[in-house]
């Protein structure tokens, strides 16, 4: 910065501290910004209640008023640099609040519309012979559990072993290639994974094949990379001293991994696996292509179509039939069940990582 030694036009009052200039000169009074915010909010509220405007323009107007007032006021008193800072603060906080809007809206909508069908019949009946009201999602819930369970059964061993390879054994080009392609695999669109499983099973069983196991294979393609990534991160956190101590006692490498490394990282791995399950349990597109839809109970993943919650919800909405309202209610009910499952899985994952984290002392 250039020299900012300005010579005051009057002689400073040498008796007063700091030459008579107040310590708080060049600053907005304390609480100015919050007060402006409250005032702008109140004005918006008044517009909404009294002038009968819609709530969204009122909120936007209040926010804009706050930004304009604080910026100009601060620019006049504090100068452009501080004013820009205040402007960015307001914009960044506003962006965060804006992102909360869809989240809140989604949760409120799904809960309020889904709770209509939360009765005993909904959870204990399938859709056989149901054309109007009633009917349930028992078959869809079982299908979701079976397919996701199979997918986990395939992905967890492969994913964990790959992560062990990458952390404990992997050197050179192969390890680099695997790391890179696991990352790339994370981004495979879910519909492409579904098409892959379909193409694979068509070669074995002929065109038009639909079975639950094909859905599980499609989900595995989506699940394996997440399991590998999270397990790898956790294994890397295991201190090398533990491994070296084990080697020093002449324990073979594989027993070191099984008895020392894995138990230490277990909580983190379990968290990662739970999050991976939560990610694939809500998938629709790959199951639409591979597992299809059926009205009745089918709990055999190797034979015939199998309904899952997400596909059920989609079809109830896309082709509701004659009694549309009842079908819509079922669609929202299934969506709410799905969301509860996903949220519970997320909470369980956090709880696992909190409760079973390795004790550092």
């Amino acid at each position: 910065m250039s020299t900012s030694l300005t010579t005051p036009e009057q002689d400073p009052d040498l008796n007063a501290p700091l030459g008579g200039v107040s310590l708080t000169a060049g600053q907005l009074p304390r609480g100015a910004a919050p007060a402006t915010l409250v005032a702008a909010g109140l004005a918006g509220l008044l517009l909404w209640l009294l002038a009968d405007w819609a709530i969204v323009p009122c909120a936007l107007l209040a926010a804009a008023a706050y930004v304009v007032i604080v910026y100009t006021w601060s620019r006049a008193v504090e100068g452009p640099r501080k004013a820009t800072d205040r402007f960015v603060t307001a914009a960044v906080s506003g962006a965060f609040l804006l992102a909360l809007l869809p989240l809140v809206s989604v949760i409120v909508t799904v809960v309020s519309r889904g709770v209509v069908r939360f009765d005993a019949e909904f959870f204990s009946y399938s859709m056989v012979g149901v054309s109007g009201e009633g009917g349930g999602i028992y078959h869809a819930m079982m299908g979701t559990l079976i397919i996701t369970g199979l997918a986990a059964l395939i992905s967890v061993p492969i994913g964990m072993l790959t992560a062990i390879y990458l952390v404990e054994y992997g050197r050179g080009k192969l390890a680099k290639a695997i790391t890179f392609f696991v990352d790339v695999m994370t981004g495979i669109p879910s519909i492409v994974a579904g098409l892959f499983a379909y193409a694979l099973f068509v070669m074995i069983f002929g065109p038009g094949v639909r079975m639950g196991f094909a859905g599980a294979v499609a989900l595995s393609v989506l699940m394996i990379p997440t399991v590998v990534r999270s397990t790898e991160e956790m294994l890397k956190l295991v201190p090398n001293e533990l491994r070296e101590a084990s080697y020093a006692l002449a324990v073979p490498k594989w027993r070191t991994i099984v008895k020392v490394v894995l138990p230490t990282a277990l909580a983190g791995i379990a968290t990662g696996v739970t999050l991976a399950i939560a990610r694939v349990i809500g998938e629709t597109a790959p199951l639409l292509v591979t597992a299809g839809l059926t009205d009745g109970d089918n709990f055999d993943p190797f034979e015939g179509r199998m309904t899952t919650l997400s596909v059920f919800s989609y079809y109830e909405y896309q082709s509701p039939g004659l009694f549309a309202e009842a079908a819509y209610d079922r669609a929202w009910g299934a969506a709410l069940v799905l969301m509860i499952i996903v949220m519970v899985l997320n909470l369980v994952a956090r709880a696992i990582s909190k409760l079973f984290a390795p004790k550092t002392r």
Partner: protein
Amino acid sequence: MASTTEAPPRKNRVPRRPGDRIFAGVSTGSGVLILVALAGVAVFLVTEAWPALTASAEEIPGGEGLVLYIWPLLFGTLISAVLALVIAVPLAVAIALFITHYAPRSIARALGYIIDLLAAVPSIIFGLWGMNVLAPITVDPASWLSEHLGWIPFFAGPPSSTGRTMFVAILVLAVMVLPIITAVVREAFMQTPQLHQEAALAIGATRWEMIRMAALPFGRSSIIGASMLGLGRALGETMAVAMVLSASGGVSLNLISSDNPPTIAANIALQFPESSGIAINTLIASGLVLFAITLAVNMIARAVINRRKDFDGAN
């Protein structure tokens, strides 16, 4: 498990135990299996798409050949993903900044979880929400836009009466990729060297100037990489677009009318259950195009992010 191998230990070397061999073999095998699976995705898609690639133009649905069938879909995919990114990236960077630099330390973690929660919502729920809540809201603003800003090709109109337009699909996509971008960018901002930030503050920078001088340059390649990741996700998003977008038409920049092309992924989801024969092969061929594009986008994204990792070592 395979039987133990009997290769004799070489002289002057510690003998490797059978357990070690098996374990190393199995874990290496899993790693290789992943590479094989990825190659398998490509191979199976190509084999199943082959009949459509070699078929004559009349046999393809629409009767104008494969390229003309896929091109509008590809256009719809690209325009929806890119515009969703245009909305999501600035918001995501701002949210990441809010969590790392503006929010009080004690609640910053919780705020991060809340944004992560957005990523956990299944896409079918975003689809239901988009067509029932978001689409009706946009009807009035869309007609206002076409009336006053109709000279911009995006808002040419006539506005759709259901609101289930490309515009809403873009908004839903933006909401869906927001948490993904935020998560990566947040990580990068958190790793901004404390010394750089304190140095900036010590020479009298305001908080915004500190962020511009220290945090943003440090996070720049992460922002680029995260945007590419988000682009990959937006390109492949299926159900939300399939449910929100009720439109069929050719290539058009018009976002608020009802004649937009669907996206590749949404088209597959909508057509697949009712298709058979060559139509299925055509859909798989379009899936192959999508796979190639997302693969390229993701490889670039990872390369950008990894380059920053290498650079990190210097700090």
